[in-house]
């Protein structure tokens, strides 16, 4: 079985409102999948549900993550098992320093696999190495998590954390939003450096622009809680040219026929 992630008929709601209405998605190691779609189609909800955000309730469906029942795992165990979500809006945590935050994360993962905590010098070396990948300033390490970071620094910080945790599946939720062109390049290059034949990436974005830097193998279009179209990289270009209307019309018509 060569599947890293298999989402089958996933339904999820917030309160009484159903947002995901039957998602099917299969991702293999080494692949980059882009998920595009108009505002409000459920892209961020999908990433939140996969990461285990308790705000959403899964009402139906299954998610298999390298053989594990993903939905039965706590958010922290999903992380230990190799799932990473880069937040669209990284959360500021006043009073918790980046160093303490990362040390807690690294050691929690080691503990999960019954390994001893990482020695301090080894940890600092790891931080140094990984910071270089996204050109993250050393000064940010002593600051509180994301507090007072610029938009670009926050997104680079996300990719830095991804580099440290070495996930096998990364979900980048609108990592391009709020980035200038230089920051976008640095973030995208960071993601590309971390790519291996064994890990996979889901890139959630509105725009083709990010996909110029992170080349997708598969492009999905999410609309009204369903994946309504799947194609190759050329699909993203087509969307850029034509907009979403043709997809919306097509999907809405199919809906009516059904």
């Amino acid at each position: 079985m060569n599947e890293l992630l298999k989402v089958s008929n996933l339904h999820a709601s917030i309160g009484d409102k159903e947002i995901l209405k039957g998602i099917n998605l299969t991702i293999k190691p080494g692949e980059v999948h882009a998920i595009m779609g108009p505002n409000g189609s459920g892209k961020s909800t999908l990433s939140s549900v996969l990461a285990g955000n308790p705000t959403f309730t899964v009402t139906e469906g299954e998610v298999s993550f390298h053989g594990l029942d993903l939905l039965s795992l706590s958010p922290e165990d999903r992380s230990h098992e190799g799932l990473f979500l880069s937040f669209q809006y990284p959360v500021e945590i006043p009073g918790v320093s980046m160093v303490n935050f990362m040390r807690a994360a690294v050691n929690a993962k080691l503990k999960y696999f019954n390994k001893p905590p990482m020695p301090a010098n080894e940890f600092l070396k790891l931080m140094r190495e990984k910071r270089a990948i996204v050109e993250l300033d050393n000064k940010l390490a002593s600051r509180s998590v994301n507090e007072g970071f610029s938009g670009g620094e926050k997104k680079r910080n996300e990719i830095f954390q991804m580099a440290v945790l070495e996930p096998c599946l990364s979900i980048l939720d609108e990592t391009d939003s709020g980035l200038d062109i230089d920051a976008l390049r640095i973030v995208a290059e960071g993601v590309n450096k971390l790519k291996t034949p064994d890990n996979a990436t889901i890139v959630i974005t509105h725009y083709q622009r990010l996909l110029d830097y992170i080349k997708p193998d598969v492009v999905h279009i999410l609309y009204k809680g369903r994946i309504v179209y799947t194609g190759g990289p050329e699909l993203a270009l087509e969307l850029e040219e034509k907009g979403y209307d043709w997809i919306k019309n097509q999907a809405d018509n199919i809906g009516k026929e059904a």
Partner: protein
Amino acid sequence: MMGALNQYLELFDNSRHDIDNGSAGAMNRLRHDARAALEGRRLPDTGDEGFEKTSIEAMFAPDLGLNINRVALPCDIASAFKCGVPNVSSLLAIMVNDTFVPSATLLNNLPDGITVMSLARAAAERPEEIDRHYGTAASLDAPGTALNTMLAQDGIYIHVDRGIKLDRPLQLVNLTSTPVPMLIPRRVLIVLEEGASLSVLTCDHTMKDSASAVSSQVIEILAGPGSSLNVCDIEESAPDQSRYSQTYVTMHDGADVSIGGMTLHCGTTRNEYSVDIRGQHCQCHLGGMAIGSGKQHIDNSSDVIHSAPHSDSRQLFKYVLDDEAHGAFEGSIVVTPDAPYTQAYQSDRNILASANARMHTKPQLLIYNDEVKCSHGATTGQLDEQALFYMQTRGIPRQQARMMLMQAFMAEVIDTVRVDAVRDRLRYLVERRLAGFDASCNDCSTCHTQQ
């Protein structure tokens, strides 16, 4: 007259001679004024102005014993106690219940110009000094203070001579150890002469196997011109203990006083801070931290009065309440017409970590002057769910993430402690407390088992 007070008035009237015999000088003289002040009064009860959530009446209602005849406790309790605050232990003063334990080590290590001794002994040996200061800051109008003044037979007297600056913190340890339920009236008098400087770390501990006790503590602080005092008061008692602590501070020109009351473990605690800023260019910092779990009840009350121009006061109180813990804060700032150019700030911020925890807060500001900068505010909320989820997605277990957020919330109060060694120690104790360990240091638990 009915109520809890009655039993103590009766006891006093019947044992006046014995009480006087166990004490001396000014302590005895003032107790008769205190008795008169209590005539026709009662102890504050829930719902009384300033006591919305805490009943002093209920705290003192049980049939509590008093050590009127000064029965000596086994002295090995104090000698067995070692509290591991690094670099401070050379100046360690211990009170077991309401009795000061003399220590040759302390005496030998005290620099010239600094007195730390039994208050009763000071009242006997240095009557003029004690007469001049005892009872000058504390108000007998407060029934709790009058009761303490009527019954207290001993305590600690600290005096720092003019211009003398102690280079390391003095540590005061209050140990509660009693085989039967007891009322422990304790008195502290701290006098700083002009330009004197002192740092004090106080901690309250309850010895293992001790019966429940109510400690009644009145602290008088007289801060002379240009003097500087830092107090960090850490309570690490036990769920069946009660504490009623009243601190009175008088500040003269240029005095700088910083007091932090940190409640880590307790049963029912009420701390009152009354600060009278009589001098110009004074700096007053009041800080408070309360970490409540189980059924702990923690009430802090402050009353800062500015009666001279150009002085600053800052108050910061923070609570984290879990389980069914209850917290209360009532604070007031009064700026009199005589105090223009005052800067006074008060902030109370609280986190309720469980659905059954409760917080009552009432910040007050009374300004009778236009030339001031003042603010006050209170917030009560919950741990940031978004931050918790974010930390979980990075693999940090929810319980640990909660602890890290609580610790981060308290960092601001910990940072108000000015002595490095004490601040580091407090940070460590808070971390352990939040992690669910006993806050006591390792040495303390060692000595607990030695008992």
